[in-house]
């Protein structure tokens, strides 16, 4: 079964609105990463948040991590058409050479003009 699961699976919002995507996981993590994938392209790294961090910002992106609830959220503020893409969380379990990285199945975000 998947370690990280995003929700919703699909999200359609009006340009200018904020978009929130969530990622839940089952076991303790080392860190959690968010990636974006445009249709037919490779993934692009957005933000990495470590298990001892609660919030990180990068431009219009805000990521929170709640280890007690085993969940993370990605907020995109003032959405633009170019934000249309699939967004994936990747959870990293364990440390050093024994660590594992597991991607969720993603949230497909559509921004309506």
């Amino acid at each position, binding site marked *: 079964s*998947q370690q990280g699961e995003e929700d919703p699976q699909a999200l359609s919002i009006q340009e200018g609105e904020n978009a929130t995507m969530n990622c839940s996981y089952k076991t303790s993590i*080392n*860190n959690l*990463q968010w*990636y974006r994938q445009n249709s037919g*392209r*490779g*993934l*692009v*790294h957005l933000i*990495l948040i*470590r298990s001892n961090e609660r919030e990180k910002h990068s431009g219009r992106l805000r990521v929170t991590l709640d280890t007690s609830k085993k969940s993370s959220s990605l907020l995109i503020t003032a959405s633009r058409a170019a934000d249309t893409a699939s967004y*994936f969380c*990747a959870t*990293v379990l364990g440390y*050093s*050479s024994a*660590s*594992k*990285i*597991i*991607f*969720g*199945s*993603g949230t497909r975000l559509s921004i309506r003009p």
Partner: protein
Amino acid sequence: GAGVSQTPSNKVTEKGKYVELRCDPISGHTALYWYRQSLGQGPEFLIYFQGTGAADDSGLPNDRFFAVRPEGSVSTLKIQRTERGDSAVYLCASSTGGHSYEQYFGPGTRLTVT
């Protein structure tokens, strides 16, 4: 500098044939990953190299799949006796360290087994 490149971009092969997929990581990146992605799904981890050695090959689905990175840079994913279920996009990524570093992904190789 150049990003991660993968060749070929598309590969169509017949069931039972052997295929090789190539990944050129970013120069100097010690970590290299192979993933497989099916339509509508997230990347599925296959194998992770740190330098020349496979640090974790637990994601390889069976012994038909094998990957090498002989000089610690370019990597080749090899699939023997291909099956239709192997059809997917195969993604390669590299990073400066292990799992706690951002990964830079290539555009992928779309493999179709007919």
